């Protein structure tokens, strides 16, 4: 029995912690005055309130100043790509829900479109419209989560509750459409799993009317709050060229002023028949590309998504909701790389097929994986209080970082 004061590990099995803690222990910041302070190595460990999941950031700090922030990932690695090579095309759809578990519809959409492009299948018109409606609603839900958790990171508890109140309504709509609230597997190869129940369109319209004024409420509560602005403006500034060089995508890239949105750049779905505009960070509260811009781009995107859903609901044609797809899908040998615009960035699938019903190689390019890679460069020379601000504005989901 473990006595009091005994270290709590299973006897005889001490898992070696790969990180050796004495790097930089002796290295002391040389200063001209005789005031020498010592660096400290902190593990903003896998369990931390503001790392949004199992991410460990190794901080080398000197007092409150951060000298180096190296993210250690891999805690949520489930070898989805290895499974992808042993599972048929249809069976892999539920795995795509678990990549970015806050926007499962968009993940399914990316995988389904990639496979359709590989196998040369064309989804019917109604299915494309349903896909757009569902993907954009999921984008609003995912941005609501970002709004809530970002407020929480900054110390304000109330936005989280209001953000999740609206998200509940979207989850009710999804539950009515496909029975699940988080991992839907609703968008499949060739179209959508089931047709929308009757009355769903009216309820979705009702939700949009209720949701539209709420965004002004969010802005009053958090966006234009002076303390929030002081905490996020001019913090973690990412210039546009560094954003492109590091392969950032989604609101993180647009926050730096780069006008790049896959829905406009490569409009495959019915996005070209719906008009909406790309929201870009203009440095309203400080330099272009700071944390406030990245946050506010997402608020603007929610407005645009609501506008898209409203138009799509109006133009929703009738017809069948799914193309005829053989149960044992054998796409011709070849390879395809296809990306769609997820709430957190561009989720890409590189699929190599050798004619058998099982893909030869399946690679998923997670947007958060690339967005996270810039953390070290941005977090240098900032304060400990800025780390939640920067991490929250990059809005990382560990599911798609570790895959």
């Amino acid at each position: 029995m473990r006595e009091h004061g005994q270290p709590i590990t299973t006897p005889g099995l001490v898992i070696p912690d790969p990180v050796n803690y004495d790097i930089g222990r002796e290295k002391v910041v040389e200063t001209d005055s005789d005031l020498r302070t010592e660096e400290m190595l902190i593990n903003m460990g896998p369990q931390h309130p503001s790392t949004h999941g199992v991410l460990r950031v190794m901080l080398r700090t000197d007092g409150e100043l951060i000298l180096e922030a190296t993210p250690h990932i891999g805690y949520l690695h489930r070898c989805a790509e290895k499974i992808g090579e042993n599972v048929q095309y249809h069976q892999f759809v539920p795995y795509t829900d678990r990549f970015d578990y806050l926007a499962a519809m968009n993940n399914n959409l990316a995988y389904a479109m990639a496979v359709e492009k590989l196998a040369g299948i064309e989804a019917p018109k109604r299915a494309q419209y349903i896909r757009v409606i569902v993907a954009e609603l999921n984008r609003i839900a995912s941005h609501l989560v970002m709004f809530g958790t970002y407020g929480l990171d900054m110390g304000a508890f109330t936005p989280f509750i209001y953000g999740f109140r609206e998200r509940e309504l979207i989850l009710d709509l999804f539950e009515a459409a496909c029975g699940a609230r988080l991992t839907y597997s609703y968008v499949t190869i060739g179209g959508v799993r089931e047709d929308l129940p009757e009355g769903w369109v009216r309820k979705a319209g009702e939700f949009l009317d209720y949701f539209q004024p709420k965004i002004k409420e969010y802005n009053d509560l958090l966006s234009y709050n002076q303390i929030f602005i002081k905490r996020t403006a001019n913090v973690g500034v990412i210039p546009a060229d560094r954003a492109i060089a590091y392969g950032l995508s989604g609101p993180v890239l647009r926050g730096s002023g780069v006008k790049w949105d896959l829905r406009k750049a490569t409009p495959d779905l019915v996005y070209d028949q719906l008009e909406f505009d790309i929201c870009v960070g203009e440095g309203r509260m400080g330099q272009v590309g700071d944390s406030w811009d990245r946050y506010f781009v997402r608020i603007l995107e929610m407005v645009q998504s609501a506008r898209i859903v409203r138009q799509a609901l109006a133009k929703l044609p009738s017809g069948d909701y799914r193309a005829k797809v053989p149960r044992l899908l054998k796409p011709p040998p070849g390879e395809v790389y296809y990306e769609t615009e997820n709430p957190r960035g561009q989720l890409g699938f590189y699929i190599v097929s050798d004619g058998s019903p099982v893909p030869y190689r399946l690679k998923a390019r997670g947007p958060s994986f690339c967005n996270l890679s810039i953390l070290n460069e941005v977090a240098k020379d900032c304060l400990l209080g800025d780390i939640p601000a920067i991490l929250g504005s990059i809005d990382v989901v560990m599911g798609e970082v570790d895959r």
Partner: protein
Amino acid sequence: MIAHIDYIPFFSWPEWLEGLIVMIAVYLPFVCLVAMFGIWWERKVSADIQSRHGPMRTGRWHGWAQSPADGLKLLAKEDLIPVAADRPLFRLAPYLSFVPAFAALVVLPFSARFIFVDMPISVVFLFGILALEVLGVILAGWASNSKWALYGAMREACQIVSYEIPLGLSILVPALAAGTLSLAAIGEQQGGGLHQWLAFRNPFLFVSCFVFFIATLADCKRSPFDLPESESELVAGYHVEYSGMRWVMFFFAEYAVMYILSAVACMLYLGAWYDPFGIVLWMEKAGYVWSSAVIGAGIIIVKAFTLVYVQMWLRWTLPRLRIDQVLSTCVKVLLPLACVNLIGAALWSWLVPAGWAQLAVQVLLTVIGTGGFLFFVGVLVRAMLSRRQGLRLTLLTPWHAIPVAEPPPGPEPASNG
């Protein structure tokens, strides 16, 4: 009975014992009650702001027994001490943080008669005792030997260096206006009616009231200044390694200091235990000594809890400042403001004759003060009313439930959500 216990020297053993009994019988339960009520009320206020219910189950009516239940649970919890912690200091820290909060009650008058010790310099004593409370926090951060706690302690040390001077200066301003350093004497000057309140005596005092309130926010580590225990950056700040009763000590200390500083704010600025219409003063003069004392105590407690409500209101709406912003606000904004108030109040009481000019200024400031107060009360009432017809949580009635075949004509009604 406890009216005017004489000064410490020259009193005999039984008198000292009597003081001890009063301290244990009256003040200790009072602090526990204040802390427990404060915790329960904070959960209710935060729930109200976030349009939810807060604790409803324990103890039937609105979960009033939630705090005692938490207390019992925490009593049963194991008091962990980290292996590499500095044991004696780890154990000492919570008491070092709770005792000053409790000792400050000695000089805090509840009404003209209910004062434990009427010290002539109670204001300075109070300020000295509350400066000790920080040591408990810093030791807790240091002794638990965890990097997060160390950061919490260092932030607390930075914070105290920045907010203590404005706090001290804005305590001196009303003392200077009232002419004495004793809280009871300051309180007695604010008797007759709303315009007598010290906050409305001159514009410098009016501004100094807000400076004092902001400094108390920083002192009891609340709302925008709650950096030493900021959850999102430092996990839980200085009390990250504490659990069970030790953690409760910190919690009690925080709520006790919150109440005490609000009571001091009411004492110094907002007409201590007198009501805005001068009734209590009239009762005191007309000889109803005991009843006026009890009513006065009630009034001061209600006023203090309104200020505590404002602190909670700020906590649940405002995000948290960063450490360098806290320092710059306290040093670059509050400090000069406090100095200007001090000098201004001194010049004011020297230059302005006590005649009608003073009265005119007092009435003007009263109008401004009550106008602002009523505006905020209006905001609160409008928020209360507008919440009633809020949207039902699920926009969608379960219309997609599959229509059940005709239910058997049993007694239970057809139930579909």
